[in-house]
C-alpha cells in the first residue's frame, strides 16, 4: 500500500511540473518539439537586408532625432555666412548595403519641400535662393533671400563595421548650393556597381555653409527640415 501511495504522489508531482512547464512555455511563446525527437535543431532567421541610410553614433546605434546645428550669427547690416558640419563622430552618416543594390546607389540631401525656408516665428530666410549667392531675394517664388551650400568633398569617407569592405568605388559628392528648381537635391555620396555588394560606409565632416541676408532679424529658433535619401539607382 505504501509503495502504491508513493508512486501516486510521484505522478501527481510529475503531472503538476509538466503542466507548469506547458503554461510557462505557452506564456513565453516557446514551441515544444515532438518528444520523440532525438536530435536538437537550432533555428535561425536572417532577415532580408535592405539598402538604408541612417545617422548613427560611434557605436553604430541609430540617433533618434538627428540634427545639425550651424554656428550662431549675430544681427548684421551685411550679408553673412554661418557654417556647420553634417556628420560628426557622434552623428555619422551611415550607409548599409547588404547585397540589396548591386547596381549602384546614391545618397542625396534635399529639403522636405523645395519651397521650404528657414522658419522662425514671424521671420524666415531662404536656403535655395541663388540671387547674389543668397544675399538677396529673387529668382524663386518666395520673398526671402539666403542660400545653403553643401560640400561633401571635404568630408571623410570610411568603412563602417564591415571588416572586409573597402571605400573603392564609393565617393563623396562635389560642393553645390541649393537653388530652387535647378538644384533641389545634392549628392552626398554614391557607390557604383563596382563597390562592395555587401558593405557599409560612414561619412563625416560634410561642410554646410548658409548665407544669411543682411538685416535678417535675430531669432533663436530658425529651423529647416531636410531629408537624407538613399536610392537604389541602377
Amino acid at each position, binding site marked *: 500500500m505504501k509503495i502504491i501511495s508513493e508512486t501516486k504522489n510521484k505522478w501527481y508531482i510529475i503531472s503538476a511540473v509538466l503542466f507548469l512547464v506547458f503554461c510557462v512555455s505557452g506564456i513565453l511563446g516557446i514551441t515544444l518539439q515532438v518528444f520523440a525527437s532525438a536530435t536538437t535543431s537550432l533555428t535561425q532567421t536572417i*532577415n532580408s537586408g535592405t539598402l538604408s541610410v541612417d545617422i548613427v553614433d560611434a557605436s553604430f546605434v541609430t540617433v533618434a532625432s538627428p*540634427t545639425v546645428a550651424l554656428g550662431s550669427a549675430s544681427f548684421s547690416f551685411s550679408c553673412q555666412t554661418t557654417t556647420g558640419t553634417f556628420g560628426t563622430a557622434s552623428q555619422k552618416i551611415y550607409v548599409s548595403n547588404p547585397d540589396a543594390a548591386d547596381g549602384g546607389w546614391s545618397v*542625396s540631401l534635399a529639403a522636405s519641400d523645395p519651397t521650404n525656408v528657414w522658419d*522662425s516665428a514671424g521671420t524666415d530666410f531662404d536656403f535655395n535662393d541663388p540671387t547674389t549667392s543668397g544675399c538677396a531675394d529673387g529668382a524663386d517664388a518666395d520673398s526671402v533671400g539666403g542660400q545653403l551650400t553643401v560640400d561633401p568633398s571635404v568630408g571623410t569617407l570610411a568603412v563602417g563595421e564591415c571588416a572586409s569592405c573597402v571605400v573603392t568605388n564609393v565617393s563623396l559628392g562635389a560642393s553645390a548650393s541649393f537653388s530652387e528648381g535647378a538644384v533641389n537635391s545634392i*549628392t552626398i555620396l554614391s557607390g557604383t556597381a563596382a563597390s562592395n555588394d555587401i558593405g557599409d560606409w560612414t561619412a563625416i565632416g560634410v561642410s554646410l555653409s548658409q548665407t544669411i541676408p543682411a538685416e535678417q532679424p535675430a531669432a*533663436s529658433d530658425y529651423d529647416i527640415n531636410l*531629408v537624407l535619401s538613399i536610392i537604389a539607382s541602377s
Partner: protein
Amino acid sequence: MYRHHLSLWGILAGLFLICLPSVSMAIEYSGFGGYPAYPQADNSRTESIFVHTLIPGAIQEEGVVVVNNTASSKTLLVYAADSTPSTGGAFACEQLSEPKDDVGAWILLEKSEVMLDSGTSELVPFIITVPAEPAVGEHNGCILIQEKSTGGEQSGKVNISMRTGIRVSITISGEIKRELSITDFSVEKDGDFIFLSPQVKNTGNTSIDTDISVKINSIFGSTKKEFGGNYPVLRGETSIWNYEFKKPFWGGVYVASFTAAYDQNSGAEVGKNTDNTLVSLHSPNIRFFSAPQLPAIFLEISGLALICFLTILVLRVRKNIKIIATTWVKKKIRSGDTIQSIAEKKAISWKKIARANRIKAPYVLKSGQTIIVPPKTKR
C-alpha cells in the same frame, strides 16, 4: 525521498533540453527600406530596381516588399514620386510634398502606410498605368519608404529625416535613341589634390549605362592611376564626375584622358546590353604639370647639386688625365731619387705623381724604374 527529488530534477532537465532547441534567433541589419517583390529572371538589376518596357496605355502589376530591420516597430510611409537629378548626375527622387507628373503619377500603391514590427516585412502591391500618349523613351520615378514623422523636430536646427528609395524605370516602346556626347573634361589643381572632372550629356531618350574610365598616364605612356565605373546617365541629363588624384610626391608632367563607353543599340535597356560592341567616346588628352611636394623639391635640389658636383669632379679628373697623357714625360729613376724629391723639383704634390704612375704605399722608387713626370718648366 532523495530518489524522488532526483527523478524530479531529471524530468525538469529533460524538459529544458527539449525546449532549448526551439528557441529561434534573428540576425538584424539595421535600417528600413524595401526591394522589388518580383525580380525578372533575365535581368539581375530588377533585384534592386523596377525595370519595365511598356506600351502606351499598358497596365503593369508590381509589388514592393517593405522591410523594417530596425530594433523597434515603425510606421512607414510608402509612396511614389518622380525622379529628379541630383548633383553630379546622380539619380534622386522628388519629395512626398511635390506634385507628380511623370512615373510618380502613373503608380498607384495599394497602401500608403504600413506598420511593421522589428524584423518584419510586408508586400505592398501596386500598379503602373501608362498614359495613352506618353513620350517614347525612358521615364523614371521612385517608390520611397520613409518613417512617418512623430513631430520630434527641434527648433533652431537642421532636422534630418531618412528615407530609402527604389528607382522605377519605365521605357515606352517606340523609336529609342541612345546617344551620348562628351561635353567637358577638366583638370584642376586644388591644394594637395588634382581634380579630374569628366562630363557627359545624354542626348537620347533613354538612360544609358555608361562605362566611365579616366586615366592618368606619365608622358612615357605608363598608367599611373585609373578611375571609373559603370554609371547610369539619365535621359536628357548631364552627368559630371569628380575624381581626386593626390599630387604625386615627385611631381612631373602627366597626361589625363577620359573614355565613355556605352551600348548604342536601341535593344539595350537598363541592366541589359545587347551583344553589340560598345561605342567608345574619347576626350582630348589633357597634359598637366604637377609640382613636386616640398620634401621632394629639397631632395631633388640636393640630388641635382650632387650630380653637378660629381660631373665637375669627373670633368676635372678627365682633364687632368688628358694633360698627363699629352704633356708629361718619361723619367728614369736614379739612385737616391725619392717620389718626394722629384715632386719638390717639379713643384707639384708627390701624391699627384704617385696617382699618375699608380705607385702604391710605401711609395718606394727603384733605381732604373721609369715613371712619368711633368715636363721641365720654362724659366
